[in-house]
């Protein structure tokens, strides 16, 4: 089994997305596709999956040139691409999803018994503990992904590509995923693995191809390279140890926020205190209740009991607007769904919380609005020709900067900044920039709550790390004493 790209090029209006991409992926090995955002990884995957066609060059599978005019053609040829957005039907059961498009039938009627048997066989093969008749919508994100992998396996795909498969998985779930990938590798499948996360690349892959600006700039066997070499190849410069280089805040002020016995639908009795200038990290598995804690502090979720005390005064919140008025800001977990109004301009996204403060009589003052956006653009180096550009056209990193700019336009007096997974899907270079911004906020005396599923990041950036499990805080560790293993043990309560 062998998948080969030779001279693949693709242009979109205004951008040469891929130029002359050539590499070969062997069966029984896992090949990593590595590159910053915009390096061309997604475009390459889309060509593999038949979503788009290459302008030039060819894709050959076992010596046969492939030409796909639709995703169905790619699937028939034995290529499955597993995207971040799951392509499952939530209301249907695990077995129906695994066998979607190919349900076993007897005289035209679906043979449910055979379906169940066959599905169970696949599930057992991967040693998973799920019921074939469970609706997929009720499974965790991790297990939904497993279902998708089983679907690809069941179709008999020879090539399985993963697009950032661990983006929304917690560390313990990742190990299950890796087990599955190793199973597939042992069967001689060609596996393509796209990810930003260095640690994983070294854990699971055999070969690495680095893309930069739509070109293949380097390729090595994983065993013969190092993280530093890879980063250098990806960004074209040496980043060194990101966390050691951070210019941190060392002086904390008085207590800013006290959370006492907070209870919501998904949070059980959470208490902690945050000082001015301090960065508190929240770690835990996905669904442990971290997001729900900060949503309650921001007035977005109903508080059932417990108390919030900001600057010594009890805080009563009916809506996020009240939290903002009190000086709290939130950069939510899902930038596109919860953070931004995608089809409006940068300007309009920056000014949302201060609309009533940039008025001249009844009308909005557009000059002031433009000034706010320009300020955010220069402060955070948002790369865009104009702040009139729609937010949807920006890269992930720049979108995150627009949200930060919204809270720090100078019109609001932000005392507490909450960042929920601020670096999700953001490339290495921009990540480092964001870490430094977080430290800069702390230096200005802002208290920061930093939620992250990436252990190295949460340990590297926070002063104190709180770990959550099933809605409760199971422990807290200072930065100097934190280890990945220690935090993982608290997160899994094993």
């Amino acid at each position, binding site marked *: 089994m062998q998948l080969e790209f030779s001279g693949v090029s693709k242009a979109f*209006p205004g951008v040469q997305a891929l130029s002359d991409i050539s590499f070969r992926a062997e069966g029984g090995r896992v090949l990593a596709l590595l590159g910053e955002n915009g390096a061309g990884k997604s475009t390459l995957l889309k060509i593999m999956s038949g979503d788009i066609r290459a302008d030039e060059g060819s894709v050959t599978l076992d010596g046969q040139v492939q030409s796909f005019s639709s995703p169905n053609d790619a699937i028939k040829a034995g290529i499955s691409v597993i995207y971040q957005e799951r392509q499952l039907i939530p209301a249907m059961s695990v077995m129906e999803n695994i066998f979607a498009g190919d349900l076993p039938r007897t005289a035209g009627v679906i043979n449910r018994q055979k379906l169940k048997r066959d599905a169970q066989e696949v599930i057992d093969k991967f040693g998973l503990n799920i019921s074939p008749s469970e609706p997929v919508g009720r499974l965790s994100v991790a297990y939904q992904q497993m279902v998708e992998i089983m679907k690809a396996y069941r179709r008999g795909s020879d090539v399985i590509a993963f697009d950032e498969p661990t983006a929304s998985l917690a560390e313990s779930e990742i190990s299950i995923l890796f087990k599955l990938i190793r199973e597939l590798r042992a069967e001689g499948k060609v596996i393509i693995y796209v990810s930003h996360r260095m640690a994983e690349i070294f854990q699971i892959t055999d070969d690495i191809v680095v893309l930069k600006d739509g070109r293949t700039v380097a390729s090595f066997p994983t065993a013969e390279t190092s993280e530093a070499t890879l980063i250098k190849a990806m960004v074209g410069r040496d980043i060194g140890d990101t966390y050691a280089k951070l210019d941190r805040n060392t002086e904390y002020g008085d207590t800013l926020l006290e959370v006492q016995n907070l209870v919501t639908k998904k949070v059980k009795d959470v208490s902690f205190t945050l000082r001015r200038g301090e960065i508190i990290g929240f770690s835990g598995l996905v669904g442990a209740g971290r997001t729900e804690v900060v949503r309650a502090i*921001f007035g*977005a979720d109903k508080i059932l009991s417990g108390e919030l005390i900001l600057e010594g005064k009890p805080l009563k919140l009916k*809506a*996020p*607007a009240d939290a*903002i*008025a009190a000086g709290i800001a*939130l950069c*939510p977990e899902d930038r596109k*769904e*919860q*953070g*931004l*109004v*995608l*089809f*409006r301009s940068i300007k*309009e996204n920056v000014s*949302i*919380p201060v*609309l*009533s403060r940039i*008025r001249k009589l*009844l*009308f*909005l003052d557009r000059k002031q609005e433009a000034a706010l956006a320009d300020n955010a653009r220069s402060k955070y180096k948002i790369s865009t020709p104009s702040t009139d550009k*729609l937010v*949807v*056209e920006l890269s992930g990193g720049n979108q995150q900067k627009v949200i930060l700019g*919204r809270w720090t336009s100078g019109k609001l007096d932000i005392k507490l900044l909450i960042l929920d997974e601020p670096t999700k899907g953001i490339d290495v270079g921009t990540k480092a920039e964001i870490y430094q911004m977080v430290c800069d906020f702390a230096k200005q005396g802002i208290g920061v709550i930093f939620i992250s599923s990436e252990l190295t990041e949460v340990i590297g950036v926070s002063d104190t790390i709180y770990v959550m499990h099933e809605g409760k805080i199971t422990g807290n560790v200072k930065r100097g004493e934190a280890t990945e293993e220690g935090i993982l043990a608290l997160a899994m309560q094993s």
Partner: protein
Amino acid sequence: MKQKKLKSTISYVFKSKMLTLVMLLVVVVAVFTIISKGQFVDPKNLRNILQSITLVSLLTIGAGMLMIGGYVDLSLGGTGTMCGLIAAYALRAGAPWYLALIIGLVTGALAGTFNAVLINELKFQPFIATLSTASITQGLGYIVNNGQQIDIDNSVFNFIGTQRIADFVPYSIIISLVLLLIYGVMLKNTKFGRSMYLVGGNPQASLLSGLHPKRVSYILFINAGSLSALAGILLAARLKTANTTGIVNQQFSGMTAAVLGGISFGGGAGGMGGALIGILILNCFNNGMLIVRVTSYWQTVASGALLLIALAIDFLRVSRTKKAS
């Protein structure tokens, strides 16, 4: 050089919604003028077009604002009709004109509130909630006077409904144009107008940025209910009678005009300038078919086709923006 300039002008025209719309209007007017051998632009006919615009504009404002905010209301026709009947009933019962008007408008506002409660508090889908309200209001309209029409004999109502400036421009259209202007300015230049676009574009993000999507939704439904009531009352005033058909058939014209004018069903886009041109296109089109004697059955078919074209243009524009990202 010259060619380059021409090229950029063409791409500008195509990108600009307003210009596309104006061109479409010009085409509609030109085609009908030619086919009707000038009858279409006869002053008498222009007078008819102006007359027909009044009611549709009110419905377009209400429906269009809702669509910008990401909602849809199928009960505007039923509500407006019911309110026309209620106002007429109040007049017949001896209420002065202003009281009858207020009673009608308040009833419209209440119907809007009812929709907003169903959607915001009881979490019904807007489509289902307003479909039910449509049926309820229409039924209540029948009940007002046992399904019979109510004649209106009130000098103020008759004046607003039937009189024209210089025997050409109906007074009622001034109400519509002034409202279009006020709403247009409000949408583009005030905090409330802006919040509608933001809430329509992404209610979650708006909430988490300090806006109040629920409040916006209440205001939008109440506003649409009141405007449809005004439309129902103006129709009754013009016909000098309120009947149970009322503006039921015009509510979809309101939505069609909004879509033609570039307000998309997805929410968060469009404006009143476009809506006005949408209204003109729709009414010129309908009137034009009448002038060139297309039978009314085919007129209905053609109106549907026009809406499809509008949706297709909207779809192409949106998918191009998406592709560019």
